[in-house]
């Protein structure tokens, strides 16, 4: 019995088919589990273990290596404030502290209403608009306490839901289908091209 919803299970199987080996689908599959459950549930992990032909301990161990996966439920909005070097120089630590006050939760924790989880993040690669803030991995570009508070107000009212989906939903554009070029076709093309190249090399020699 599948823990993943039918449509998500379908996408999961498609993902596995994109790679030469099933285990390679591990990272995108874990993103899919988060899309459904908001975090990595035990059932989701078990299903990923089955899809990637490994064990739950292995999947959990792999997932916990990466910052974007949560092994426990988090808020609807995960707010990441960068305090790395460029943002440090632009007041990132101060903005982080302010964020904690506005959101009503400590760094690394979730607000009581379950709406926000606040994290102190490393470089988010938007350093000319420092200090950088992302909500569910979308850049919101609120570099001042005032603009941050305005954003939080909008989030509370659901006014940004069209651009910022709930935590877990990462890529809203689906790949249009699986691999298009059959492996046998590619193999024979490459073999032919190699032979032709060797021929050319021999002729010029």
């Amino acid at each position, binding site marked *: 019995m599948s823990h993943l919803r039918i449509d998500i299970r379908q996408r999961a199987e498609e993902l596995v088919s994109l790679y030469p080996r099933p285990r390679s689908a591990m990272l995108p599959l874990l993103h899919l589990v988060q899309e459904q459950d908001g975090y990595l549930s035990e059932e989701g992990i078990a299903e990923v273990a089955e899809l990637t032909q490994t064990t739950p301990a292995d999947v959990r161990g792999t997932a916990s290596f990466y910052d974007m996966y949560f092994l426990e439920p988090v808020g609807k909005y995960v707010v990441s404030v960068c305090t790395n070097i460029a943002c440090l120089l632009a007041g990132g630590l101060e903005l982080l502290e302010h964020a904690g006050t506005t959101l009503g939760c400590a760094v690394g924790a979730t607000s009581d209403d379950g709406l926000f989880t606040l994290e102190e993040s490393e470089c988010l690669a938007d350093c000319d608009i420092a200090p950088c803030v992302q909500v569910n991995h979308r850049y919101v570009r609120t570099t001042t306490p005032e603009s941050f508070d305005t954003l939080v107000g909008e989030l509370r009212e659901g006014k940004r839901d069209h651009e910022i989906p709930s935590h877990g939903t990462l890529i809203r554009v689906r790949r249009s289908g699986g691999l298009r*070029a059959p492996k046998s076709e590619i193999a024979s093309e490459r073999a032919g091209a190699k032979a032709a*190249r060797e021929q050319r090399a021999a002729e010029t020699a």
Partner: protein
Amino acid sequence: MAVIDSPRIVTARAGYEDSFTLARYLATGGYDGLRKALTMFPEDVAKQVDDASLLGRGGAGFPAGRKWSMLRKAPISYLVVNGDESEPATFKDHFLVERDPHQLIEGIIISAYALQVSQAFLYLRGEFALGLERVQQALNDAYELGALGSKIFGSDFSLDLVVHPGAGAYICGEETALIEGLEGKRGFPRIKPPFFPAVSGLYGEPTVVNNVETMANVPWIVLNGGAAFAALGGGRSTGTRMFALAGRVKNPGIYEIEMVKNTFRDLIFDPAFGGGIINDRAIKAFIPGGVSAPWFGPDLLDLPMGQDEVAEKGSMLGSGSVVVFDETSCVVRAAWRITKFFSRESCGQCTPCREGSGWIERAMYRLEHGGGRMEDLELLLDLCDNIAPGLSWPPQQTTICVLGSSIPSSVHSAISMFRDEFALHVTNQGCPFD
């Protein structure tokens, strides 16, 4: 020296709002490079890249042509493109991915053709949610256009490209850790030798790993010829390069600049670029190439921005990120925060990096926040020496990968250049700034 105007090779579409759409791409010469490449022999396409002397734009700066040619003996199975930009203060690949995904895709397809790989993968940083969506959309469009899939543009070359999202780990920007992530495992870098990707990469097969910006240059190189690219820049540093300027400057941002022709002073102070320090304060120091790089003082502002030029002075151009400190910046705090970054991002495989980064971070924390001692300075340098013996540049390492040997850069630079500031932190038992 006046600022030299540079051609726009990879940021040509920056002025368009819809720069990322297929329509705009086709209207501005999109996929012409691919069409031309398909009329050439693969080895001739590769030769153009070789002629361009295109240095890798990721961080190591290894010549792409030479990397490609290492594999001509054995068939190359995979092309893996590194879009896991996570080096602090680097944000150029972010631009390319979000604002010009088709250019990147075209560059990948051309390169895949030159290398004759079986499949290509684009590993994109997981935090680039919008970028992932735009690239996926561009990919779908490219397939529909016939630029990907079976018999591309009616040629005898088929290819599939898969976009692979990362999940938040700086170390996955290291090429072998990236491959591990692509194999679905923890991002543990592999020991080199023997695991040079060219020899044993994805699934143990010969693999080429190239940076996003490197790939983005390829369409132009094919359309205009490698020689045209090599005519730009100077010495081994050919072509243009995207520099990501951040820190205490008035105009932080991405600037595509011809290599070597301009200096750091141009980048930081010229009104066309950085515009000088905020509130016209005095510059204190700058990092020439990402936080893994040793720092430079104001005495090196007139150094030309070239790979070898910077290397000779004991640092690196690295990821092309330039961070500027001014007189209001606390270097102890900066070095502490950079160390904290490495400690959090250390993969944990090997002892010196795993334990050393944490220890150094704890000592730096005391120096910055209270509890520091003068003997901590010698201790810190010795700990750094136990990670990168000799504290030389380029560094030696007791670690598996270069993240380890990057840890000493900021600490060593800060202590060497600003010992007085550390002493002040000790007597003050905390930070004297703000």
